[in-house]
Protein backbone atom coordinates (compact mmCIF):
# COMPACT_ATOMS: atom_id res chain seq x y z
CA UNK A 1 0.00 0.00 0.00
CA UNK A 2 2.72 2.47 1.04
CA UNK A 3 6.33 2.12 0.04
CA UNK A 4 8.97 4.65 1.06
CA UNK A 5 12.33 4.20 -0.65
CA UNK A 6 15.58 5.92 0.21
CA UNK A 7 13.80 8.94 1.63
CA UNK A 8 15.94 11.89 2.72
CA UNK A 9 14.72 15.07 4.40
CA UNK A 10 16.77 18.10 5.40
CA UNK A 11 15.75 20.97 7.65
CA UNK A 12 18.32 23.55 6.72
CA UNK A 13 21.54 21.91 7.85
CA UNK A 14 19.86 19.14 9.83
CA UNK A 15 19.70 15.81 8.05
CA UNK A 16 16.51 14.51 9.66
CA UNK A 17 15.98 11.42 7.48
CA UNK A 18 18.87 9.58 5.85
CA UNK A 19 17.75 7.30 3.06
CA UNK A 20 14.91 5.64 4.95
CA UNK A 21 12.97 2.78 3.39
CA UNK A 22 9.82 1.27 4.84
CA UNK A 23 6.94 -0.79 3.54
CA UNK A 24 3.38 -0.76 4.83
CA UNK A 25 1.41 -3.66 3.31
CA UNK A 26 -2.35 -3.45 2.81
CA UNK A 27 -4.47 -4.07 5.91
CA UNK A 28 -1.47 -4.30 8.23
CA UNK A 29 -0.40 -2.25 11.20
CA UNK A 30 3.20 -1.11 10.91
CA UNK A 31 4.86 0.79 13.70
CA UNK A 32 7.82 3.09 13.82
CA UNK A 33 9.54 3.34 17.17
CA UNK A 34 12.42 5.51 18.17
CA UNK A 35 13.56 8.12 20.65
CA UNK A 36 12.55 11.74 20.59
CA UNK A 37 14.09 13.50 17.61
CA UNK A 38 14.76 10.28 15.69
CA UNK A 39 12.75 11.55 12.72
CA UNK A 40 9.49 9.64 13.13
CA UNK A 41 7.21 12.65 12.71
CA UNK A 42 9.30 13.86 9.81
CA UNK A 43 8.63 10.61 7.98
CA UNK A 44 4.86 10.89 8.43
CA UNK A 45 4.91 14.55 7.47
CA UNK A 46 6.85 13.71 4.32
CA UNK A 47 4.26 11.09 3.37
CA UNK A 48 1.50 13.69 3.89
CA UNK A 49 3.37 16.19 1.75
CA UNK A 50 3.94 18.65 4.58
CA UNK A 51 7.73 18.78 4.36
CA UNK A 52 9.90 19.10 1.27
CA UNK A 53 11.87 15.99 0.51
CA UNK A 54 15.45 16.07 -0.76
CA UNK A 55 15.66 12.56 -2.16
CA UNK A 56 13.96 9.21 -2.50
CA UNK A 57 10.54 7.95 -3.48
CA UNK A 58 7.12 7.65 -1.89
CA UNK A 59 4.75 5.26 -3.60
CA UNK A 60 1.18 4.82 -2.48
CA UNK A 61 -1.37 2.49 -4.06
CA UNK A 62 1.05 1.97 -6.94
CA UNK A 63 1.51 5.68 -7.66
CA UNK A 64 4.27 8.15 -7.00
CA UNK A 65 2.89 10.74 -4.57
CA UNK A 66 6.05 12.69 -3.91
CA UNK A 67 5.57 16.39 -4.64
CA UNK A 68 1.79 16.23 -4.71
CA UNK A 69 0.18 18.94 -2.54
CA UNK A 70 -1.02 17.80 0.90
CA UNK A 71 -4.71 18.29 0.27
CA UNK A 72 -4.57 16.07 -2.79
CA UNK A 73 -2.71 13.36 -0.87
CA UNK A 74 -5.47 13.52 1.73
CA UNK A 75 -8.03 13.11 -1.03
CA UNK A 76 -6.22 9.97 -2.19
CA UNK A 77 -7.19 8.34 1.10
CA UNK A 78 -4.31 9.07 3.45
CA UNK A 79 -5.38 10.58 6.78
CA UNK A 80 -3.11 11.71 9.56
CA UNK A 81 -3.69 12.32 13.21
CA UNK A 82 -0.80 14.71 13.77
CA UNK A 83 1.54 14.94 16.70
CA UNK A 84 0.10 17.07 19.47
CA UNK A 85 -3.51 16.39 18.41
CA UNK A 86 -3.96 19.71 16.62
CA UNK A 87 -7.74 19.76 16.93
CA UNK A 88 -9.42 22.96 15.75
CA UNK A 89 -9.84 24.56 19.14
CA UNK A 90 -12.53 27.14 18.31
CA UNK A 91 -14.70 24.66 16.47
CA UNK A 92 -17.14 22.37 18.22
CA UNK A 93 -16.46 18.66 18.52
CA UNK A 94 -19.10 18.07 15.87
CA UNK A 95 -17.55 20.61 13.50
CA UNK A 96 -14.13 19.05 13.98
CA UNK A 97 -15.56 15.73 12.87
CA UNK A 98 -17.20 17.39 9.88
CA UNK A 99 -13.80 18.82 8.93
CA UNK A 100 -12.46 15.29 8.88
CA UNK A 101 -15.12 14.48 6.30
CA UNK A 102 -14.33 17.58 4.24
CA UNK A 103 -13.66 15.63 1.04
CA UNK A 104 -16.87 13.65 1.23
CA UNK A 105 -20.29 14.63 -0.09
CA UNK A 106 -22.37 11.69 1.12
CA UNK A 107 -24.22 13.55 3.85
CA UNK A 108 -26.11 10.49 5.08
CA UNK A 109 -23.00 8.34 5.33
CA UNK A 110 -21.16 11.15 7.09
CA UNK A 111 -23.91 11.33 9.72
CA UNK A 112 -23.72 7.58 10.16
CA UNK A 113 -19.94 7.72 10.62
CA UNK A 114 -20.26 10.51 13.16
CA UNK A 115 -22.70 8.36 15.06
CA UNK A 116 -20.17 5.52 14.94
CA UNK A 117 -17.50 7.82 16.36
CA UNK A 118 -19.83 8.89 19.14
CA UNK A 119 -20.58 5.27 19.94
CA UNK A 120 -16.89 4.51 20.06
CA UNK A 121 -16.07 7.59 22.13
CA UNK A 122 -19.13 8.35 24.26
CA UNK A 123 -17.21 11.20 25.94
CA UNK A 124 -17.23 13.06 22.65
CA UNK A 125 -20.99 12.78 22.34
CA UNK A 126 -21.39 14.45 25.72
CA UNK A 127 -19.33 17.36 24.43
CA UNK A 128 -20.69 17.41 20.91
CA UNK A 129 -21.36 21.15 20.76
CA UNK A 130 -18.53 22.40 22.96
CA UNK A 131 -15.44 24.00 21.48
CA UNK A 132 -12.61 21.48 21.22
CA UNK A 133 -10.50 23.78 23.39
CA UNK A 134 -12.58 22.81 26.43
CA UNK A 135 -11.75 19.11 26.05
CA UNK A 136 -9.18 17.33 28.19
CA UNK A 137 -6.01 16.06 26.55
CA UNK A 138 -7.40 12.56 26.32
CA UNK A 139 -10.66 13.73 24.80
CA UNK A 140 -8.79 15.84 22.29
CA UNK A 141 -6.78 12.78 21.32
CA UNK A 142 -10.00 10.85 20.77
CA UNK A 143 -11.28 13.72 18.68
CA UNK A 144 -8.11 13.85 16.58
CA UNK A 145 -8.42 10.14 15.99
CA UNK A 146 -12.12 10.41 15.19
CA UNK A 147 -11.49 13.32 12.86
CA UNK A 148 -8.87 11.33 10.96
CA UNK A 149 -11.29 8.41 10.65
CA UNK A 150 -14.04 10.63 9.27
CA UNK A 151 -12.34 10.70 5.88
CA UNK A 152 -12.67 6.90 5.72
CA UNK A 153 -8.97 6.63 5.01
CA UNK A 154 -7.35 3.68 3.31
CA UNK A 155 -4.12 4.50 5.09
CA UNK A 156 -4.15 5.99 8.56
CA UNK A 157 -1.05 7.73 9.89
CA UNK A 158 -1.00 8.10 13.67
CA UNK A 159 1.65 10.25 15.31
CA UNK A 160 1.94 9.37 18.99
CA UNK A 161 -1.75 8.94 19.72
CA UNK A 162 -1.06 8.03 23.34
CA UNK A 163 1.24 10.94 24.14
CA UNK A 164 0.52 12.50 27.50
CA UNK A 165 -2.44 10.27 28.29
CA UNK A 166 -3.23 8.46 31.51
CA UNK A 167 -2.65 4.67 31.36
CA UNK A 168 -6.37 3.96 31.26
CA UNK A 169 -6.80 6.20 28.25
CA UNK A 170 -3.76 4.74 26.55
CA UNK A 171 -5.39 1.33 26.73
CA UNK A 172 -8.56 2.87 25.30
CA UNK A 173 -6.62 4.36 22.38
CA UNK A 174 -4.98 1.06 21.56
CA UNK A 175 -8.31 -0.71 21.79
CA UNK A 176 -9.66 1.65 19.15
CA UNK A 177 -6.60 1.24 16.94
CA UNK A 178 -7.07 -2.53 17.03
CA UNK A 179 -10.75 -2.12 16.20
CA UNK A 180 -10.05 0.15 13.23
CA UNK A 181 -7.44 -2.28 12.00
CA UNK A 182 -9.84 -5.19 12.23
CA UNK A 183 -12.28 -3.24 10.09
CA UNK A 184 -9.70 -3.19 7.33
CA UNK A 185 -7.77 0.07 7.60
CA UNK A 186 -4.04 0.04 6.99
CA UNK A 187 -2.18 1.84 9.77
CA UNK A 188 1.24 3.35 10.17
CA UNK A 189 1.68 4.04 13.86
CA UNK A 190 4.33 6.11 15.59
CA UNK A 191 4.82 5.55 19.27
CA UNK A 192 7.18 6.28 22.09
CA UNK A 193 5.26 3.63 23.97
CA UNK A 194 7.14 0.92 22.09
CA UNK A 195 5.77 -1.96 24.13
CA UNK A 196 2.13 -1.26 23.34
CA UNK A 197 2.88 -0.37 19.74
CA UNK A 198 4.84 -3.56 19.03
CA UNK A 199 2.06 -5.59 20.58
CA UNK A 200 -0.54 -4.37 18.09
CA UNK A 201 1.83 -4.14 15.13
CA UNK A 202 2.36 -6.75 12.44
CA UNK A 203 5.71 -5.24 11.60
CA UNK A 204 7.98 -2.65 13.13
CA UNK A 205 10.91 -0.41 12.32
CA UNK A 206 13.32 1.15 14.75
CA UNK A 207 14.50 4.60 13.80
CA UNK A 208 17.62 6.19 15.27
CA UNK A 209 18.82 9.67 14.30
CA UNK A 210 17.20 9.48 10.91
CA UNK A 211 18.14 5.91 10.02
CA UNK A 212 16.37 2.56 10.24
CA UNK A 213 18.60 0.47 12.48
CA UNK A 214 16.35 -2.52 12.97
CA UNK A 215 13.18 -4.03 11.56
CA UNK A 216 11.11 -7.14 12.04
CA UNK A 217 7.75 -8.46 13.06
CA UNK A 218 6.26 -7.01 16.21
CA UNK A 219 6.97 -10.21 18.09
CA UNK A 220 10.59 -10.40 16.96
CA UNK A 221 11.28 -6.83 17.98
CA UNK A 222 9.67 -7.33 21.37
CA UNK A 223 12.16 -10.12 21.99
CA UNK A 224 15.17 -8.29 20.57
CA UNK A 225 17.79 -7.50 23.18
CA UNK A 226 18.68 -4.08 21.78
CA UNK A 227 15.02 -3.05 21.60
CA UNK A 228 14.41 -4.28 25.11
CA UNK A 229 17.34 -2.27 26.37
CA UNK A 230 16.74 0.94 24.50
CA UNK A 231 12.96 1.18 24.24
CA UNK A 232 11.25 -1.18 26.62
CA UNK A 233 13.08 0.03 29.67
CA UNK A 234 14.42 -3.42 30.52
CA UNK A 235 17.98 -4.20 31.40
Amino acid at each position, binding site marked *: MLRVEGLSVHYGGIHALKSVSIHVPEEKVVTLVGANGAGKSTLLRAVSGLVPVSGGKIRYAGRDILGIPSHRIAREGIAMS*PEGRRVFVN*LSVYENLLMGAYCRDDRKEIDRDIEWIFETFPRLLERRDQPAATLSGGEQQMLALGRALMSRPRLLLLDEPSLGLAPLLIREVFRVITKIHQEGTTILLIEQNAMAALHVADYGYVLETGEIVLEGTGKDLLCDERVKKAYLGET
Partner: protein
Amino acid sequence: MELTFFLQQMINGVALGSLYGLIAIGYTMVYGIIRLINFAHGDVMMMGCYFAYFGILMFSMPWWVSFAVAMVLTAVLGITMDKGAYLPVRNAPRISALITAIGVSFLLENVGLVVFGGRPKGFATPAMFSEVYEVAGLMVPALVVWTPLLTLVILSGVLFIIHRTKTGRAMRCISLDMETTRLMGVDVNRIISVTFAVGSAAAAAGGIMWAMRYPEINPLMGIIPGFKAFVAAVLGGIGNITGAMLGGLLLGVAEILLVALMPELAGYRDAVAFGLLILILLFRPTGLMGTKLPD
Protein backbone atom coordinates in the same frame (compact mmCIF):
# COMPACT_ATOMS: atom_id res chain seq x y z
CA MET B 1 -28.02 70.08 23.57
CA GLU B 2 -31.28 69.56 21.78
CA LEU B 3 -32.55 66.04 21.41
CA THR B 4 -33.21 66.36 17.68
CA PHE B 5 -29.73 67.72 17.16
CA PHE B 6 -28.26 64.80 19.05
CA LEU B 7 -30.40 62.26 17.19
CA GLN B 8 -29.45 63.86 13.90
CA GLN B 9 -25.77 63.49 14.74
CA MET B 10 -26.21 59.92 15.90
CA ILE B 11 -27.96 58.97 12.66
CA ASN B 12 -25.13 60.48 10.67
CA GLY B 13 -22.57 58.81 12.87
CA VAL B 14 -24.16 55.40 12.48
CA ALA B 15 -24.36 55.83 8.70
CA LEU B 16 -20.71 56.80 8.45
CA GLY B 17 -19.67 54.17 10.96
CA SER B 18 -21.45 51.34 9.19
CA LEU B 19 -19.63 52.40 6.06
CA TYR B 20 -16.29 52.09 7.86
CA GLY B 21 -17.44 48.75 9.19
CA LEU B 22 -18.43 47.53 5.74
CA ILE B 23 -15.00 48.31 4.35
CA ALA B 24 -13.36 46.84 7.45
CA ILE B 25 -14.96 43.42 6.82
CA GLY B 26 -12.48 42.64 4.06
CA TYR B 27 -9.55 43.91 6.10
CA THR B 28 -10.42 41.78 9.06
CA MET B 29 -11.34 38.65 7.06
CA VAL B 30 -8.01 38.60 5.27
CA TYR B 31 -6.14 39.26 8.49
CA GLY B 32 -8.11 36.57 10.26
CA ILE B 33 -7.22 33.92 7.74
CA ILE B 34 -3.60 34.67 6.83
CA ARG B 35 -2.51 37.34 9.35
CA LEU B 36 -1.88 39.82 6.56
CA ILE B 37 -2.69 43.51 6.88
CA ASN B 38 -3.76 44.07 3.31
CA PHE B 39 -2.73 47.69 2.88
CA ALA B 40 -4.12 47.62 -0.64
CA HIS B 41 -7.66 47.08 0.64
CA GLY B 42 -8.63 50.77 0.38
CA ASP B 43 -7.30 50.82 -3.18
CA VAL B 44 -9.36 47.75 -4.03
CA MET B 45 -12.34 49.76 -2.78
CA MET B 46 -11.32 52.61 -5.09
CA MET B 47 -11.18 50.24 -8.06
CA GLY B 48 -14.69 49.10 -7.20
CA CYS B 49 -15.88 52.70 -7.43
CA TYR B 50 -14.34 53.11 -10.86
CA PHE B 51 -15.86 49.86 -12.09
CA ALA B 52 -19.28 51.15 -11.02
CA TYR B 53 -18.58 54.57 -12.50
CA PHE B 54 -17.64 53.15 -15.90
CA GLY B 55 -20.55 50.74 -15.79
CA ILE B 56 -23.01 53.58 -15.51
CA LEU B 57 -21.28 56.14 -17.69
CA MET B 58 -19.63 54.21 -20.48
CA PHE B 59 -21.80 51.17 -20.73
CA SER B 60 -24.98 52.95 -19.62
CA MET B 61 -26.02 50.07 -17.41
CA PRO B 62 -28.84 50.62 -14.94
CA TRP B 63 -27.22 51.57 -11.64
CA TRP B 64 -28.01 48.32 -9.88
CA VAL B 65 -26.57 46.21 -12.69
CA SER B 66 -23.50 48.38 -12.68
CA PHE B 67 -23.12 48.03 -8.91
CA ALA B 68 -23.48 44.26 -9.07
CA VAL B 69 -21.00 44.01 -11.94
CA ALA B 70 -18.59 46.25 -10.03
CA MET B 71 -18.77 43.97 -7.01
CA VAL B 72 -18.07 40.92 -9.14
CA LEU B 73 -15.18 42.60 -10.94
CA THR B 74 -13.71 43.75 -7.64
CA ALA B 75 -13.98 40.22 -6.30
CA VAL B 76 -12.02 39.05 -9.35
CA LEU B 77 -9.48 41.79 -8.69
CA GLY B 78 -9.17 40.52 -5.11
CA ILE B 79 -8.50 36.97 -6.32
CA THR B 80 -5.98 38.22 -8.87
CA MET B 81 -4.19 40.21 -6.19
CA ASP B 82 -4.03 37.15 -3.95
CA LYS B 83 -2.81 34.79 -6.66
CA GLY B 84 -0.44 37.27 -8.28
CA ALA B 85 1.06 39.04 -5.29
CA TYR B 86 0.37 37.23 -2.02
CA LEU B 87 0.44 33.55 -2.94
CA PRO B 88 4.09 33.68 -4.03
CA VAL B 89 5.11 35.04 -0.61
CA ARG B 90 2.74 32.88 1.44
CA ASN B 91 5.54 30.92 3.08
CA ALA B 92 7.96 33.81 3.32
CA PRO B 93 8.35 35.75 6.58
CA ARG B 94 5.31 37.86 7.32
CA ILE B 95 7.18 41.12 6.74
CA SER B 96 7.61 40.16 3.06
CA ALA B 97 3.85 39.87 2.65
CA LEU B 98 3.40 43.21 4.39
CA ILE B 99 5.84 44.92 2.04
CA THR B 100 4.15 43.22 -0.89
CA ALA B 101 0.82 44.66 0.30
CA ILE B 102 2.29 48.17 0.33
CA GLY B 103 3.60 47.52 -3.17
CA VAL B 104 0.19 46.39 -4.39
CA SER B 105 -1.32 49.52 -2.88
CA PHE B 106 1.09 51.80 -4.78
CA LEU B 107 0.56 49.77 -7.92
CA LEU B 108 -3.22 50.13 -7.85
CA GLU B 109 -3.03 53.84 -7.04
CA ASN B 110 -0.60 54.53 -9.85
CA VAL B 111 -2.35 52.34 -12.38
CA GLY B 112 -5.45 54.32 -11.42
CA LEU B 113 -3.66 57.61 -12.02
CA VAL B 114 -2.42 56.48 -15.44
CA VAL B 115 -5.59 54.78 -16.65
CA PHE B 116 -8.34 56.87 -15.07
CA GLY B 117 -6.40 60.13 -14.77
CA GLY B 118 -5.81 62.12 -11.62
CA ARG B 119 -8.72 64.51 -12.16
CA PRO B 120 -11.66 63.66 -9.88
CA LYS B 121 -14.71 62.33 -11.67
CA GLY B 122 -18.26 63.08 -10.63
CA PHE B 123 -20.06 59.95 -9.48
CA ALA B 124 -23.62 59.74 -10.78
CA THR B 125 -25.66 59.00 -7.69
CA PRO B 126 -28.95 57.30 -8.55
CA ALA B 127 -31.96 59.44 -7.62
CA MET B 128 -33.14 56.88 -5.13
CA PHE B 129 -30.05 57.50 -3.01
CA SER B 130 -29.92 61.28 -3.24
CA GLU B 131 -33.33 62.06 -1.77
CA VAL B 132 -33.68 63.54 1.64
CA TYR B 133 -36.61 62.59 3.84
CA GLU B 134 -37.94 64.67 6.67
CA VAL B 135 -38.93 62.54 9.61
CA ALA B 136 -40.13 64.12 12.84
CA GLY B 137 -38.04 67.21 12.31
CA LEU B 138 -34.95 65.23 11.37
CA MET B 139 -33.35 65.50 7.96
CA VAL B 140 -32.71 61.98 6.84
CA PRO B 141 -30.83 61.58 3.56
CA ALA B 142 -31.75 58.34 1.83
CA LEU B 143 -28.13 57.23 1.99
CA VAL B 144 -28.20 57.39 5.76
CA VAL B 145 -30.91 54.75 5.65
CA TRP B 146 -29.47 52.65 2.85
CA THR B 147 -25.89 52.45 4.05
CA PRO B 148 -26.60 50.71 7.37
CA LEU B 149 -29.19 48.49 5.66
CA LEU B 150 -26.77 47.37 2.98
CA THR B 151 -24.08 46.90 5.59
CA LEU B 152 -26.39 44.75 7.67
CA VAL B 153 -27.27 42.59 4.67
CA ILE B 154 -23.63 42.09 3.69
CA LEU B 155 -22.54 41.52 7.28
CA SER B 156 -25.21 38.86 7.72
CA GLY B 157 -24.19 37.25 4.45
CA VAL B 158 -20.54 37.12 5.47
CA LEU B 159 -21.35 35.77 8.92
CA PHE B 160 -23.56 33.16 7.32
CA ILE B 161 -20.76 32.05 5.01
CA ILE B 162 -18.26 31.85 7.86
CA HIS B 163 -20.42 30.06 10.39
CA ARG B 164 -22.85 28.04 8.35
CA THR B 165 -21.08 26.83 5.21
CA LYS B 166 -18.39 24.28 4.54
CA THR B 167 -16.18 26.93 2.95
CA GLY B 168 -16.59 29.12 6.02
CA ARG B 169 -15.71 26.24 8.31
CA ALA B 170 -12.54 25.74 6.28
CA MET B 171 -11.78 29.48 6.65
CA ARG B 172 -12.04 29.22 10.42
CA CYS B 173 -9.79 26.17 10.40
CA ILE B 174 -7.15 27.86 8.25
CA SER B 175 -7.07 30.79 10.62
CA LEU B 176 -6.37 28.37 13.49
CA ASP B 177 -3.99 25.91 11.87
CA MET B 178 -3.27 26.05 8.16
CA GLU B 179 -1.19 22.90 8.05
CA THR B 180 -3.73 20.67 9.77
CA THR B 181 -6.44 22.12 7.55
CA ARG B 182 -4.46 20.87 4.55
CA LEU B 183 -4.45 17.40 6.09
CA MET B 184 -8.26 17.45 5.96
CA GLY B 185 -8.02 17.69 2.18
CA VAL B 186 -8.78 21.42 2.05
CA ASP B 187 -7.30 23.31 -0.88
CA VAL B 188 -6.13 26.11 1.37
CA ASN B 189 -5.13 28.48 -1.44
CA ARG B 190 -8.57 28.24 -2.97
CA ILE B 191 -10.27 29.07 0.32
CA ILE B 192 -7.95 32.04 0.83
CA SER B 193 -8.85 33.31 -2.63
CA VAL B 194 -12.53 33.03 -1.77
CA THR B 195 -11.82 35.11 1.31
CA PHE B 196 -10.19 37.80 -0.80
CA ALA B 197 -13.12 37.69 -3.20
CA VAL B 198 -15.74 38.14 -0.48
CA GLY B 199 -13.76 40.88 1.28
CA SER B 200 -13.15 42.73 -1.96
CA ALA B 201 -16.78 42.54 -3.03
CA ALA B 202 -17.77 43.99 0.33
CA ALA B 203 -15.18 46.73 -0.15
CA ALA B 204 -16.66 47.53 -3.56
CA ALA B 205 -20.11 47.89 -1.99
CA GLY B 206 -18.61 50.14 0.68
CA GLY B 207 -16.74 52.13 -1.93
CA ILE B 208 -19.85 52.73 -3.98
CA MET B 209 -21.67 53.93 -0.89
CA TRP B 210 -18.70 56.15 -0.16
CA ALA B 211 -18.75 57.54 -3.68
CA MET B 212 -22.40 58.43 -3.33
CA ARG B 213 -21.73 60.13 -0.03
CA TYR B 214 -18.80 62.14 -1.36
CA PRO B 215 -19.67 62.02 -5.07
CA GLU B 216 -16.25 62.63 -6.51
CA ILE B 217 -13.93 59.76 -7.15
CA ASN B 218 -10.19 59.81 -7.75
CA PRO B 219 -7.45 57.17 -7.74
CA LEU B 220 -6.26 58.13 -4.26
CA MET B 221 -9.70 58.15 -2.69
CA GLY B 222 -9.14 54.73 -1.09
CA ILE B 223 -6.39 55.84 1.23
CA ILE B 224 -8.41 57.58 3.93
CA PRO B 225 -11.39 55.19 4.08
CA GLY B 226 -8.92 52.31 3.90
CA PHE B 227 -7.11 53.72 6.89
CA LYS B 228 -10.32 54.36 8.81
CA ALA B 229 -11.47 50.82 8.11
CA PHE B 230 -8.14 49.56 9.38
CA VAL B 231 -8.64 51.49 12.60
CA ALA B 232 -12.18 50.11 12.86
CA ALA B 233 -10.85 46.58 12.43
CA VAL B 234 -8.15 47.04 15.06
CA LEU B 235 -10.62 48.75 17.38
CA GLY B 236 -13.00 45.81 17.18
CA GLY B 237 -10.25 43.24 17.47
CA ILE B 238 -8.67 42.46 14.14
CA GLY B 239 -9.83 39.15 12.73
CA ASN B 240 -13.24 39.53 14.36
CA ILE B 241 -15.96 40.50 11.87
CA THR B 242 -18.63 41.61 14.30
CA GLY B 243 -15.90 43.50 16.12
CA ALA B 244 -14.96 45.31 12.92
CA MET B 245 -18.54 46.45 12.56
CA LEU B 246 -18.65 47.71 16.15
CA GLY B 247 -15.29 49.40 15.70
CA GLY B 248 -16.59 51.10 12.58
CA LEU B 249 -19.72 52.35 14.32
CA LEU B 250 -17.71 53.63 17.26
CA LEU B 251 -15.28 55.45 15.02
CA GLY B 252 -18.05 56.93 12.87
CA VAL B 253 -20.04 58.18 15.85
CA ALA B 254 -16.93 59.56 17.55
CA GLU B 255 -15.95 61.49 14.46
CA ILE B 256 -19.38 62.96 13.83
CA LEU B 257 -19.85 63.90 17.47
CA LEU B 258 -16.48 65.60 17.55
CA VAL B 259 -17.40 67.72 14.56
CA ALA B 260 -20.88 68.44 15.93
CA LEU B 261 -19.92 69.29 19.49
CA MET B 262 -16.63 71.01 18.81
CA PRO B 263 -16.89 72.46 15.33
CA GLU B 264 -13.66 74.37 15.88
CA LEU B 265 -11.88 71.00 16.02
CA ALA B 266 -13.55 69.72 12.84
CA GLY B 267 -10.23 69.81 11.05
CA TYR B 268 -8.97 67.17 13.43
CA ARG B 269 -11.53 64.54 12.57
CA ASP B 270 -9.03 62.30 10.86
CA ALA B 271 -6.75 62.70 13.85
CA VAL B 272 -9.47 61.12 15.98
CA ALA B 273 -8.96 57.90 14.09
CA PHE B 274 -5.18 58.09 14.49
CA GLY B 275 -5.57 58.90 18.18
CA LEU B 276 -7.95 56.00 18.74
CA LEU B 277 -5.57 53.66 16.94
CA ILE B 278 -2.67 54.71 19.15
CA LEU B 279 -4.78 54.40 22.30
CA ILE B 280 -6.09 50.97 21.42
CA LEU B 281 -2.64 49.72 20.48
CA LEU B 282 -1.28 51.02 23.77
CA PHE B 283 -3.97 49.81 26.12
CA ARG B 284 -5.86 47.01 24.46
CA PRO B 285 -4.02 45.74 21.40
CA THR B 286 -6.43 42.85 20.95
CA GLY B 287 -9.29 45.30 20.43
CA LEU B 288 -12.72 45.37 21.98
CA MET B 289 -13.84 41.91 20.96
CA GLY B 290 -10.51 40.36 20.15
CA THR B 291 -9.03 37.39 21.86
CA LYS B 292 -5.40 36.45 21.80
CA LEU B 293 -4.53 35.02 18.44
CA PRO B 294 -2.40 31.95 17.99
CA ASP B 295 0.77 33.33 16.46
